[in-house]
C-alpha cells in the first residue's frame, strides 16, 4: 500500500490539464491524487456539479479515462449500472476481465443531500465501486447555497449572515458515520493536505472487495472566501483543529489515522475564511463556542470508537 513518490510521479495523468476548475480549487488536486494512487484501470462517473462542468464541456474533455455523467443525484446508480454490466459481460465471457475499478465522484450536495438514497441503495447492494465525496460544504457550482454538509455559522447565499442570524443555524450531517453504518468494507475521511494519507486510502478503497467510500474535505476558495493560494493550508488547519479528523473504518474497525500533537482551537480555522467573518462580531461570538463544543464532542466520540 505504500505510496512512493518517485513511482507515482512517473505515472501518466488521468485528468488532463486545461480543465476549467477555478484557480486554487482543491477538487482537481484530490481527483489527481486519488486516480494516481489507483494502479488498476478505472471507469469514472461524476454527478452534476463542479467536477462535471469543469472537465467535460463538449466538444472537449479533460478525461483520459472512460467517464460518464448522467444527472445530479444518481452517480452511485449510474456507476453501479456500469459495474453490473462489467460483471455480467465478464461472467458471460463476452469480454475479458480487465480488473477495472469503478469510481464515482460527487460533491456534498450530490452525496449528503440529493443523492443519499441512490448511494445508500448502491452500498446495500454491494456493488464494487469507490465513491468519492468532494465535500466543499455547500452547493458551490450554483453559487454557494447551503447543504447539509455546511457547518453551523457559515454564511452561504441561502443561509446568509444578517443582522439577527449568524449564517447557517444547524451543525452538519455526520455523513461518514452514516456510510460506515452500512458496514461496507472500507470507509474513510481524508484531506488533500495530508496527501499520503489520502492516496493510501484511495489504494485501500480500490483493494476493497465491495463498496468503499472516502469523504474528502475539498476547499472552495470562492465559497469559503479566502485567497486562492491557501487552499491546502486551510484544509490542513481543518485537520489540525480536529474539525475534519482523518480516520478510516476498515471492516468495521474504526481507526484515527492522525492525532494532532496539539489540538488547535477551531477559531484558528474559522478565521482563515470570510464565510465565518461575522462570527467574530460580539453578538455572534457564542456561535464559535458552539462550533468548538461540537468539534470537541465529535472528536471524543471518534477517539472512543477507535479505541474500542
Amino acid at each position, binding site marked *: 500500500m505504500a505510496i512512493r513518490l518517485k513511482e507515482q510521479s512517473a505515472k501518466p495523468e488521468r485528468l488532463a490539464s486545461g480543465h476549467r476548475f477555478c484557480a486554487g480549487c482543491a477538487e482537481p488536486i484530490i481527483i489527481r491524487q486519488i486516480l494516481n494512487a489507483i494502479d488498476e484501470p478505472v471507469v469514472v462517473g461524476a454527478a452534476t456539479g463542479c467536477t462535471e462542468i469543469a472537465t467535460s464541456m463538449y466538444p472537449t474533455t479533460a478525461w483520459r479515462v472512460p467517464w460518464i*455523467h448522467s444527472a445530479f443525484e444518481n452517480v452511485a446508480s449510474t456507476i453501479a449500472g456500469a459495474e453490473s454490466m462489467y460483471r455480467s459481460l465478464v461472467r458471460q465471457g463476452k469480454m475479458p476481465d480487465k480488473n477495472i475499478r469503478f469510481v464515482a465522484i460527487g460533491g456534498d450536495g450530490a452525496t449528503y443531500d440529493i443523492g443519499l438514497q441512490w448511494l445508500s*441503495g448502491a452500498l446495500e447492494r454491494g456493488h464494487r465501486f469507490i465513491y468519492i465525496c468532494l465535500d466543499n460544504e455547500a452547493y458551490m457550482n450554483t453559487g454557494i447555497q447551503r447543504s447539509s454538509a455546511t457547518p453551523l455559522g457559515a454564511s452561504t447565499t441561502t443561509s446568509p449572515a444578517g443582522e439577527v442570524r449568524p449564517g447557517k443555524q444547524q451543525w452538519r450531517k455526520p455523513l461518514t458515520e452514516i456510510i460506515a453504518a452500512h458496514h461496507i468494507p472500507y470507509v474513510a475521511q481524508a484531506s488533500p493536505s495530508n496527501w499520503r494519507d489520502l492516496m493510501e486510502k484511495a489504494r485501500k478503497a480500490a483493494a476493497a472487495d465491495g463498496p468503499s467510500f472516502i469523504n474528502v474535505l475539498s476547499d472552495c476558495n470562492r465559497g469559503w472566501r479566502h485567497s486562492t493560494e491557501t487552499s491546502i493550508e486551510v484544509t490542513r488547519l481543518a485537520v489540525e483543529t480536529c474539525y475534519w479528523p482523518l480516520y478510516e473504518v476498515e471492516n468495521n474497525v474504526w481507526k484515527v489515522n492522525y492525532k494532532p500533537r496539539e489540538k488547535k482551537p477551531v477559531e484558528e480555522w474559522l478565521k482563515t475564511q470570510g464565510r465565518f467573518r461575522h462570527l467574530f462580531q460580539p453578538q455572534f461570538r457564542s456561535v464559535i463556542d458552539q462550533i468548538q463544543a461540537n468539534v470537541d464532542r465529535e472528536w471524543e466520540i471518534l477517539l472512543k470508537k477507535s479505541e474500542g
Partner: protein
Amino acid sequence: MVMATKVALDGAHAVSEAMRQIDPDVVAAYPITPQTAVVQRFSQFVADGRVNTEFVAVESEHAAMSACVGAAAAGGRVMTATAANGLALMWEMLYIAASMRLPIVMPVVNRALSGPLNIHCDHSDSMGARDAGWIQLYSETAQEAYDNTIQAIRIAEHADLKLPVMVMQDGFITGHGVERVEVADDKDVREFIGKYAPEHSLLDIDNPKTFGAWDMYDYYFEHKRQQTDAFSKAMPIITAVGKEFGSRFGRNYGIFDAFEMDDAEMAIIVLSSTAGTCRTVVRDMRKQGVKIGMLKLRVFRPFPAAELARALSRVRAVAVLDRSISFGAHEGAGPIFMELCSALFAAGSDAKVVDYIFGLGGRDIFPQHIEQVVHDLKEIASSGKVKSQVSYLGLRE
C-alpha cells in the same frame, strides 16, 4: 417451420417471458403495481439460472433508469419495466437515456398517475412521457405485448436509430388478464434479435470516451436536431421489423391496424385493449350496414401523421378515444386527438374529428359506450356539424 408453444399467460408474464428469451445483460428494475409480476417472474428466472442477466434490484425507479443508463453506456443489452408513478419518478432519466441514444427497452404496464392514488389502467403515465424521446409501441393483447417486446430490441438497437423503446399494455385488463399466448422457441427469438454490438462502450479502457458531456448553446441545439432526425427515420424501420417478425413468426405488425376501413365513411381511433371492444361494435354495426371502421394505433411515437391522414382520406367523421387528458389543452382534449388534428390539418383534410375521454383510473368501457360514439359519428357525418368537440364516456355528471 417455427416452433411455438401455446401457453396461458397474463400480459405481465408474457412480457417477462419475452425478457427471458431476450436474456439482457443487465436488468435494473423496481416493482410497482401492476408491473410487479414482470419483475417477480424475471427474478425467478435469475434465481433458477434460466437467464445470464445481472439483475439489479434497485431502491427506486429513478435508480432503475439511472443504472440502465450506466449499464447501457457500458455496452450491453439493458431492460427495465415500470408503470405509473414509477415512470413519473424516472422522468428526468427518460430524457437522459434518450438523449444519450441508449437503446434501452422498457415494458410499461399502463396505470393512472396519482393523485389521487389509483392503481388501475389509463394512459396518463406513458402519454405524459410522450415527448421524452422514446419510441412508444402500444399492445392490445398479451400476445402483442410479447411480440412488441421482442421487436423493440431490434428497433432500439438499429444503427440508424439508437433510441430507447417503451412497450405498453393496459394495466390489469391486459397485464393481469390470462390469455392464450404463442411463445416462440427461444432459439428463434435469439436469432431474430441477433447479437448486440454497440458503437461505443464505457468499458473500452483502451479507447477512453466521455459520455454525458456538458453541452452548451453552441452544440446542444444540433444534438437535439440529430435526435429528432433519428425519429424521422424510425417509421420504415419499425415497419420493416414488423414485417420480418411476421414472416418468421406468422403475426404481422404495421404502424396501425386497420379494421373495416376500406369503404369506411366514419372511423374510430383507439389504443391498446379497448380496440377489442371497438372491433366487436364495428362488426355489429357493419351487419346493420353502418360504414364504420377502426384504426388501432400501435406506434404513437413517432406519430404516424402522414400514414393516418392517408388512411382517413375518405372518412367524413373521426372519433378519437383518449384514455388520458392533456390538462389545459383545447377543451381538455387528450393527446391522440391533438396529434391527429394536427396531422389532418397538415394534410388538408376536412374530416370532422371529435374526442372521447374514457376509462380514467380503470373505469370500465362497455360496447354501449362505443355504440354511442358510432351514433354520434353518424349524426356528424350526415349533418357536418359537431355538437361537442370533447366528450366523456362512462362518466357520471
